[in-house]
């Protein structure tokens, strides 16, 4: 063997030995039986989208989850087990999310997962945890197909799905029969397509016509052409599913063009988004399904106020708080840490959430969370940030089909 080749192989072999000995020291902890040993820690893996397209609210999700865990541990844990939160970055992409979840489950001995802001991550992780791992997964995502496999799944949803959201929007528009010509502006993302499909289906037979349908580019910087186009159609009302950062773009570019004055605008307006706007679209009809602390007057909403007002009110922290609560209450109800027993205990049960006591539908494990609707007012009306006033809470149970 030549001198140079020999040297390189020797170097690699040395590196190999060092590496192998390092790795050997990091063996897995093993998964063991379904029921945790007495006194063992209940590990909850939390998928936070710390980087990637929905990173904007990621820190708030983590704060909410941490608060819920801290609170549970202060009260002695659950069934005598302390809780431990393991936060991982899923980068809002399924490949990373699955890798993290799989690592938590296979190597970390985790039996409870929560989190992610991406439906795509939720969907792929749900596939992963359902079979053969049997891991409880509490998450808040809009994609109804994540939960469509029926009561056997181990996933539980803490926010209304796109189907519920679309039906609720249609109910609102239908309640205004004088609006004949409806324009729809949707997020050009699977979420937008799903809400829109549900909305359009629920609008059938209303006698109101959907005169235009636009999918606005996700993360786009210029919506002026689309806004101009929609206003040129002279709609009586506009329904928008444009979300988060893109809501900001739509509002900023829509204001000068008259999107909020020339027509009746109605759309998703999360508190976390409108609070971040220097000029919120005052007077506009909006809705949100995120549990902002100022919307609900419940014990859990008050607990959220341990966080900073902006975080408590953003909604993301409340959602994560609910997810951890679902796991904790599930274990308490099952009187066991066995995920299958926890699942059976949660299905059909009523759980305490930031939004109050809410039923979990047995057929698809969706928590029938209310949707908050109202007219946007600026800061100063009793609250230090933009909010809905008057505020109306819609019971979503009527939109479920099981």
């Amino acid at each position: 063997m030549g001198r140079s080749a020999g040297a390189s192989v020797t170097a690699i072999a040395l590196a190999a030995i060092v590496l192998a000995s390092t790795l050997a020291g990091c063996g897995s902890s093993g998964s063991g039986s379904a029921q945790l040993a007495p006194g063992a820690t209940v590990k909850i893996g939390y998928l936070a989208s710390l980087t990637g397209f929905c990173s904007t609210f990621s820190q708030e999700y983590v704060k909410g989850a941490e608060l819920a865990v801290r609170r549970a541990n202060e009260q002695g844990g659950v069934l005598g087990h302390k809780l431990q939160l393991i936060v991982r970055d899923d980068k809002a992409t399924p490949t990373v999310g699955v890798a993290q979840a799989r690592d938590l489950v296979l190597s970390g001995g985790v039996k409870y997962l929560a989190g992610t802001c991406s439906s795509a991550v939720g969907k792929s992780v749900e596939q992963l945890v359902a079979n053969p791992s049997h891991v409880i997964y509490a998450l808040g995502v809009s994609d109804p197909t994540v939960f469509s496999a029926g009561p056997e799944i181990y996933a539980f949803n803490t926010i209304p799905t796109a189907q519920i959201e679309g039906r609720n929007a249609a109910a609102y528009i239908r309640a205004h029969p004088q609006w004949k010509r409806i324009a729809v502006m949707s997020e050009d993302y699977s979420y937008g397509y799903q809400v829109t499909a549900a909305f359009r289906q629920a609008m059938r037979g209303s006698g109101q016509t959907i005169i235009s349908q636009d999918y606005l580019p996700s993360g786009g910087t210029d919506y002026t052409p689309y806004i101009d186009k929609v206003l040129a159609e002279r709609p009586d009302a506009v329904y928008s599913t444009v979300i988060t950062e893109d809501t900001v773009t739509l509002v900023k570019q829509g204001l000068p063009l008259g999107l909020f004055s020339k027509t009746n605008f109605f759309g998703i307006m999360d508190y976390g988004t409108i609070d971040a706007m220097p000029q919120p679209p005052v007077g506009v009809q909006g809705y949100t399904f995120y549990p902002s602390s100022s919307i609900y007057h419940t014990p859990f909403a008050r607990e959220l106020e341990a966080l900073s007002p902006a975080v408590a009110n953003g909604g993301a922290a409340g959602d994560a708080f609910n997810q951890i609560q679902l796991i904790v209450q599930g274990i308490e109800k099952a009187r066991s840490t066995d995920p299958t027993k926890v699942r059976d205990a949660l299905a059909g049960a009523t759980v305490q959430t930031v939004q109050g006591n809410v039923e979990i539908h047995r057929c698809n494990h969706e928590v029938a969370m209310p949707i908050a609707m109202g007219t946007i007012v600026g800061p100063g009306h009793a609250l230090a940030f933009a909010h809905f006033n008057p505020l109306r809470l819609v019971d979503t149970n009527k939109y479920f089909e099981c």
Partner: protein
Amino acid sequence: MSLATFIGQLFAGLGLAFVLFFTAAGLNLVWGVLGVMNFAAGSVYMLGAYLTTSVIARLGASALGWTVALIAVPVAVAALGAVAEVALLRRTYRVQDENRQFMLTLALSYLIAGAIVLVFGTHFRTVSLPGALNGGWNLLGATLSRYTVVTIVLGLLVTVGIWLGLYRTRAGLLTRAAVDDREMLAVLGVNVDRLYSAVFAVGIGLGALGGVLIAPQGAVSTNLETTALVPAFIVVVTGGLGNMTGALLAALAIGILQSFAALHDATLAQLTPYVVMSVVLGARALAGRRGWSLTGLRSPRGEPAAGSTAG
């Protein structure tokens, strides 16, 4: 299509075009003179937007705040560009190595994007405009966003500025001369190193200006980097590498066509840059021409295209 719709879409398209043009012009200037394809253009644009949020947070969304942002942010980023040029790129000109230069700017883009996450976090930011720029103006039945009009006017001013700078100043003369023969210029006693730094700084500053202008139009987030880069590359390639006039025409064509395509279908609108590029490149291949350079800024290097030597 009614006249009002036509005017509305036309102005929206012009607004799109000029924001595109700022980034593309910066890319072109740097490519034309230095022979560097600046991958950091996208992150520079994002940096411009983020710094604007800082300036406005300090000074308020007043006329003063915005005047400072419009001037100080591009200048500050340009200064940063000059430092990067001296520290990283300068040593690469002697051995003309465009791949190393591209990779250095790629590293720069990672560092800028990483630093933005570190300093500003991941939550999006917003800034508002001075009151006078909110709202719209009516023109023949169409409502035009005042800010879009301002963007277009600024775009025209900058375009005229670039042209005057290149053709009516001594610096522009030297810049154009540097494209043709760097060594000769050095022999004539011109400080070419300083000229290169200045050109790189101006190119970076133009990109940052695009970021300043886009900041009040939406949320300032880490998404901005990629949304700027692909369209800007397409504009540069479509217009002909290093060709300022070509880039302006390409930006106008893409912006306006995209705006009108939105009348039919949003997906089609998003594909417009690719369609325009394919048509122009195809037509150019048929005509057997490799770009027309009206400004004299053309690719100084590169293997002659296959069609012109072989075949």
